[in-house]
């Protein structure tokens, strides 16, 4: 239990998927102009990550990993090179399914998250989490916690950035640095702030 908690804290703060691995940057830059949209997208990312991480875990460990097909009598196969194409297909399919399910059963949630779901299929943070999970050899429970933690960390970063950008609206940013440039500088300062957490162990 402590391990899982510490994994969660670690993936939210210390190994923040956005600020220390630079994943999910595209939508981070594009969407962080508005606080409400960032919150919506943040929740959608947490939601999708928490579902796709264990789904990809199961597919990797029962179909793709070396020897994973031994239940079908094909133990000598190593299909792990197919993981990229499989993961991206699984993510796209799950995002599509989630969108339809939410649309059917919870119109309120759909109106809040619906527009963001298609964006998420190509968000590097989702695929990155799946690939990190394979590389770090997490168990099923760990992959769920890691997915949720990465999503939370991503949301924290994008909401913080949207808030800072709102504050900065009246700031006198040098010409040329305005827009994308200053977003990166602020991102750097945020990354430095997040590094202060790196001493924490549970």
């Amino acid at each position, binding site marked *: 239990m402590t391990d899982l908690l510490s994994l969660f804290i670690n993936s939210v703060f210390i190994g923040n998927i956005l600020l220390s691995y630079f994943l999910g940057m595209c939508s981070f830059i594009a969407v962080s102009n508005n606080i409400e949209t960032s919150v919506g997208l943040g929740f959608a990312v947490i939601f999708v990550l928490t579902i796709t991480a264990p789904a990809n875990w199961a597919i990797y460990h029962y179909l793709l990993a070396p020897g994973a097909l031994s239940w079908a009598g094909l133990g000598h196969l190593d299909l792990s090179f197919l993981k990229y194409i499989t993961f*991206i297909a699984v993510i*796209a399919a799950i995002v599509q399914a989630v969108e339809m399910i939410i649309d059917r059963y919870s119109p309120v949630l759909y109106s809040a998250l619906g527009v963001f779901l298609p964006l998420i299929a190509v968000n590097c943070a989702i695929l990155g989490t799946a*690939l990190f999970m394979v590389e770090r050899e997490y168990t099923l429970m760990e992959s769920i916690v890691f997915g949720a933690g990465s999503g939370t960390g991503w949301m924290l970063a994008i909401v913080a950035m949207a808030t800072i950008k709102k504050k900065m609206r009246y700031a006198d940013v040098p010409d040329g640095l305005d827009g994308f440039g200053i977003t990166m500088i602020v991102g*750097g300062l945020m990354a430095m702030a997040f590094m202060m957490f790196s001493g924490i162990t549970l």
Partner: protein
Amino acid sequence: MSNGNLTLKETFFRGIWKENPVAYQVLGICSALAVTVQMKTAIVMGIALTLVTGASNLIISLLRKQIPPTIRIIVELTVIASLVIVIDQVLQAFLYDISKQLSVFVGLIITNCIVLGRAEAFALANPPLPSLLDGLGNGLGYSLVLVAVAVVRELLGSGKLMGIAVVPQVWLEAGYAHMGLMTLAPGAFFIIGLLVWLKNSLPGASHEQK
């Protein structure tokens, strides 16, 4: 985007500087930064991405009349993912150490906005040869930024270039210290920010829209 008045040469060079994908189009920086601690990894990453962008543009442009518009994203992703698998296998076979260092970031070329963005914006509407050049040009422009960031980070962060120490020992004895910040994540953010500032301030570069 009409291709009528663009020569092939312009198509190729446009992506490298004038409409450089990282600095200008704000695309694809996702995976650009984590591999820039060392020049070696940045160069390999740049080559990998250039090949994928070029090849995917070529293939998608050849298929452009056959792809139904409704499922084009899926087709594009499949093409790109297959190319990335090929690149990853080649790297594992011939450059195993670098492939270990690049770890998940080779796979993340799939979700790199540049590759999909060029396929969507250019290859779907243009013949194969200009598409190939457009892809290669954009890939090289991306590599240029990646390597520029890596040079600064490796030089200031660990005093090396391509793994060879370039800061003289005398300096170190005289009290010169490496800038540890550069090897960490914030360094990459700062350098990209300053690079964009530099590019926007240079004459001839089109100003980024707010």
